[in-house]
């Protein structure tokens, strides 16, 4: 399995900060952008609708005026006959024409054509075609259809009309008497519509097939109208790919004109770019702050941890003199405090260990000192034994034999000896004493058979017995020393050496070690034995001193039962 790459603590902290700061920011920015755009677009669309509505209303008013004029002219027999027959210009006809067309003349030209398309009367004196084809254009449409019809003019020139309405005037007989033609020029549309759609934006009027009729800026209209038409036919958005402008479209049903209002895009590319820039800058700032925060926080956290790590490394290398500086009171501070105390405890333990080792070494050195040149002594003693046998001095022979045995035992390399052997050596020692002290001491050993093989540190009984003979029985008649070995069930071996001597001073009673600690000067022999027991077996074992109830002292060595391990 592929191991997932793990980020450092610093990295994770940074990512977390980044996530916590960047995500809400980005979501907020995006939503704000969206809402902002929606609101602005909506407001703009509503505004455009209102403006187009007022343009539409103006056109409605104009159409109303045109329809009223057409109806009045149709109803007037004099005007009908004038249109049909023509004749000389008659002021009466003109006054009627002016009366019926009323205020609509401000933004339209009214002409009367006869049935052949010949112009008869005009409300304006400007140039106008004298004839209009009756099978083409607006007259053709009027001939095909009842009522007022509207059509955009084909020719686009500065002086030509842009948009025409026409109605066929029916003679009383049913024939066409003539036509009323209403023409709107660029200036007329300007008069009619200007101010209705506000100063912002450009108004375009398109015919039902989206060909240009009127544009407030004719030059713009010439290029824009074909473009809008092709976008419409291609099924594209009118706003186009550039999107710099917005278009609102409304149909004016009576004239069939499409009203198109072009406004500059409220939400321009620049605005969007600005908003994006702001958002991105904020995001960048977030990243920066996250980096700084994560760096400083991780450093704060990391420094004590690094110290701790360095300390642990030192301890691993064996340097126990490490101590961490205490600077903070939080959990990390507590951690380094604990570390310090742990190291201190460790150091103390180690010193204790070394001290113990040193003491053991000293005891061993003392023992070695006692083994000075032992072979020479042994051989000398053997020589002495033979000389005394030859010279018939049996005591000397016995003593030198005993001494040699003891010495051999002492210098043997084994540290432990079976109890039975230990007691034998003790017998030798006692024999020497008997000879020295003329048999004044009796010696008994009570060693149960099953405990005879128990291993004990060699030469631990001799110093105790020596102590009893030298100190306990000093000046006592019929001195007696008893060695009794017992074992309790829990594996504790008790070796008691008792005498019937003067007894111990009371401060010596109890555990020997305790007495020594309390300051009473012990005997070197007992001290050595106690120390050996301590070093070999631990605090729980050692010497115990007490006075016997019937007089005399009893020294008991406590040690665990160990037997010789026979592997063969």
């Amino acid at each position: 399995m592929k191991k997932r790459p793990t980020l450092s603590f610093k990295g994770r902290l940074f990512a977390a900060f980044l996530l916590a700061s960047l995500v809400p920011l980005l979501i907020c920015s995006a939503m704000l952008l969206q809402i902002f755009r929606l609101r602005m677009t909506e407001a703009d669309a509503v505004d455009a609708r209102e403006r187009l509505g007022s343009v539409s209303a103006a056109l409605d008013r104009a159409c109303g005026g045109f329809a009223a004029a057409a109806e009045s002219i149709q109803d007037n027999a004099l005007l009908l006959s004038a249109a049909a027959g023509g004749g000389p210009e008659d002021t009466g006809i003109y006054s009627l024409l002016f009366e019926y067309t009323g205020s609509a003349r401000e933004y339209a030209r009214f002409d009367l054509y006869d049935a052949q398309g010949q112009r008869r009367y005009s409300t304006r004196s400007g140039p106008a075609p004298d004839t209009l084809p009756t099978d083409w254009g607006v007259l053709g449409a009027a001939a095909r259809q009842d009522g007022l019809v509207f059509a955009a003019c084909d020719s686009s020139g500065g002086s030509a009309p842009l948009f025409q309405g026409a109605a066929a005037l029916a003679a009383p007989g049913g024939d066409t008497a003539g036509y009323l033609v209403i023409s709107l020029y660029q200036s007329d549309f300007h008069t009619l519509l200007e101010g209705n759609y506000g100063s912002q934006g450009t108004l375009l009027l398109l015919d039902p097939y989206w060909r240009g009729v009127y544009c407030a800026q004719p030059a713009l209209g010439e290029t824009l109208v074909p473009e809008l038409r092709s976008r419409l036919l291609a099924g594209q958005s009118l706003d186009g790919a550039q999107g710099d402008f917005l278009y609102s479209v409304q149909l004016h049903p009576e004239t069939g004109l499409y009203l198109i209002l072009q406004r500059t895009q409220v939400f321009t590319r620049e605005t969007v770019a600005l908003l994006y820039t702001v958002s991105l800058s904020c995001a960048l700032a977030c990243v920066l702050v996250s980096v700084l925060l994560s760096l400083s926080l991780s450093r704060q956290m990391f420094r004590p941890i690094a110290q701790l790590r360095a300390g642990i490394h030192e301890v691993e290398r064996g340097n126990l003199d490490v101590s961490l500086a205490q600077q903070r009171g939080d959990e990390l501070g507590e951690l380094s405090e604990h570390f310090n105390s742990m190291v201190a405890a460790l150091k103390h333990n180690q010193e204790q260990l070394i001290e113990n080792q040193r003491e053991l070494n000293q005891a061993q050195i003392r023992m070695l000192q006692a083994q000075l040149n032992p072979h020479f002594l042994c051989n000398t003693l053997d020589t002495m034994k033979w000389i005394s046998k030859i010279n018939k001095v049996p005591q000397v022979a016995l003593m030198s034999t005993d001494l040699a045995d003891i010495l051999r035992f002492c210098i043997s390399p084994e540290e432990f000896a079976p109890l039975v052997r230990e007691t034998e050596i003790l017998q030798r020692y006692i024999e020497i004493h008997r000879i020295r002290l003329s048999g004044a001491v009796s010696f008994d050993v009570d060693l149960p058979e099953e405990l005879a093989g128990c291993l004990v540190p060699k030469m631990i009984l001799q110093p105790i017995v020596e102590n009893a003979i030298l100190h306990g029985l000093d000046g006592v008649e019929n001195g007696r020393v008893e060695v009794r070995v017992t074992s309790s069930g829990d594996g504790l071996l008790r070796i008691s050496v008792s005498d019937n001597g003067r007894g111990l001073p009371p401060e010596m009673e109890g555990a020997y070690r305790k007495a020594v600690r309390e300051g009473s000067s012990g005997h070197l022999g007992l001290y050595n034995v106690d120390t050996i027991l301590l070093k070999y077996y631990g605090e729980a074992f050692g010497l115990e001193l007490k006075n016997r109830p019937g007089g005399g002292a009893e020294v008991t060595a406590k040690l665990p039962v160990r037997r010789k391990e026979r592997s063969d």
Partner: protein
Amino acid sequence: MIKKLLCVIVVFALLCGCAGSTPAAKSGFAPDEEHRLVVYTSHKQEVWQPIVREFERRTGIWVDVVYGATSELLERIERESRDVQADLMFGGGVESLETYRECFTPYTCAGADRLLTQFRCADGLWTPFSALPVVLIYNTKLMEPGLLTGWRDLLAPELQGEIAFTDPSVSGSAFTALMTMLCALPGDRGENLRAFAENLGGVQLDGSGAVLTAVADGSATVGVTLEETALKRIAEGENIAMVYPADGTSCVPDASAIVRGAPHEENARAFIDFTVSAEVQRLLASQFCRRPVLEGVDSLPGSPALDELPAADYDLELAVSERDAVLMSWAFYLVKSEA
């Protein structure tokens, strides 16, 4: 962690994307397919616009006009034969349409029997629109009247380098004029072609309108063009006079043809019917200086009637079959004369 960050970035991008895209304001005012017509035309706007707008008003069909040179549009139609865009080719001499006959489908228009017989198409591949005799023009300030009478004069050395003529490989009318001259002049066609090319002095113009301009401003003394164009410019008061070549002219009609596989074929038929209707044909004569192809419609006012014109023995089939060969020779001679 990195994955999460990526997710965040993607989400943001999506949100921005939503914010960036406006709901496409597709207008509901667009006409449905049944009310559409795509017309490729080589007619100038002043010709097609009134006709197209009147057609829209009468039928309610939206016409999408694509304007271009004849050969350019025909090549485009051929290119688009797998994905047909155009419904109708409106304009272009009939020999051009014949050259691309594979792209078109025959249609016999309403009232086909009222078309002038010499302009009828045998197999109905195209429908004539107007008749355009080839004429010669001269600058009235640079040349005395009566000096220019026919094609023969164009080969005279006096007019070397003084003739305005359009590149026949670009302009269909120039090719028609060239073929007319070759049919009208006696003698070997190849020889006449070489002589005319040499008399041009290596200069040919890149549009039919440029001939009139060149003659009017005096940079050329004489020119070859169509009656329609010449009459219009004369009416505008230019220093131009027009001569029907005495050794014969042609009267090749321009025509309309329905593109094979047209998406709106019904509408295209309606449009063709409209172009040969009496109203449109009357408009041709009265407004555009073009000769109508419909019987009973008054021809150009003030101009000789069609049958009064000196007619060359114009061979339409030859014009179609020899087109590439003639154009190649033309290009060859022209480059040579330039050197």
